[in-house]
């Protein structure tokens, strides 16, 4: 299993953490960010999500985030998985798993990576609301 992936299927947090922990027995702290499909957005009720990505480019951006995280933070390994396609409310969307010897580094890298993912990765979310399906622009 690759450390950085875009896939339609759901993922197992246990499996992703094991994958990252396999990098070293010197890992003392793992910080995980899990993004889940919540039932509201800007006050509106959401009944489902659908994600589209730019194949090839999205994977390249995520790999670039991993490489920069390894270079800029004192972490041992980091994994990134993002789902695409239809996602039901309550289901998982994205998982970032950062591992380090000491916990501060993993917290910083994990928070940086999810912010960078949102900023630089060509993935788009469509929300199903009462009024129909709407593409979400984080910066309208």
């Amino acid at each position, binding site marked *: 299993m690759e450390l950085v992936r875009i896939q339609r299927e759901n993922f197992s947090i246990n499996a992703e953490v094991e994958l990252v922990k396999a990098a070293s027995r010197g890992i003392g702290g793992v910080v995980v960010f899990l993004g889940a499909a919540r039932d509201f957005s800007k006050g509106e009720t959401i009944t489902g999500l659908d994600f589209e990505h730019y194949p090839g480019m999205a994977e390249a951006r995520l790999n670039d985030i991993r490489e920069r995280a390894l270079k800029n933070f004192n972490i041992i390994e980091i994994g990134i998985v993002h789902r695409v396609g239809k996602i039901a409310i309550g289901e998982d*969307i994205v998982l970032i798993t950062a591992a380090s010897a000491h916990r501060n580094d993993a917290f910083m890298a994990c928070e940086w990576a999810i912010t960078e993912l949102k900023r630089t990765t060509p993935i788009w979310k469509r929300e199903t609301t009462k009024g129909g399906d709407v593409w979400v622009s984080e910066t309208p």
Partner: protein
Amino acid sequence: MITVRFFAMLKGLAKAESREYKIDAPITVAELKSMLKKDFPALSTILDGRSILISVNLEFADKNTIIKDGDEVGLLPPFSGG
């Protein structure tokens, strides 16, 4: 031939997933934008704004980036992953 790919809401506005152009010589991103605005009036306003990013061969590009025959250009609306 170059391929221009539309993503997310741009697909709906352009009523297309992609568009191919035959070019005789390399062009800039700015020049391609002018061609697109003519062929897809529904994209005109959005292409004049600052919210759409452009990629050339899967890398972020700017208005001066050169597009050569065989290149793939992406029109990327604001991301909403994560």
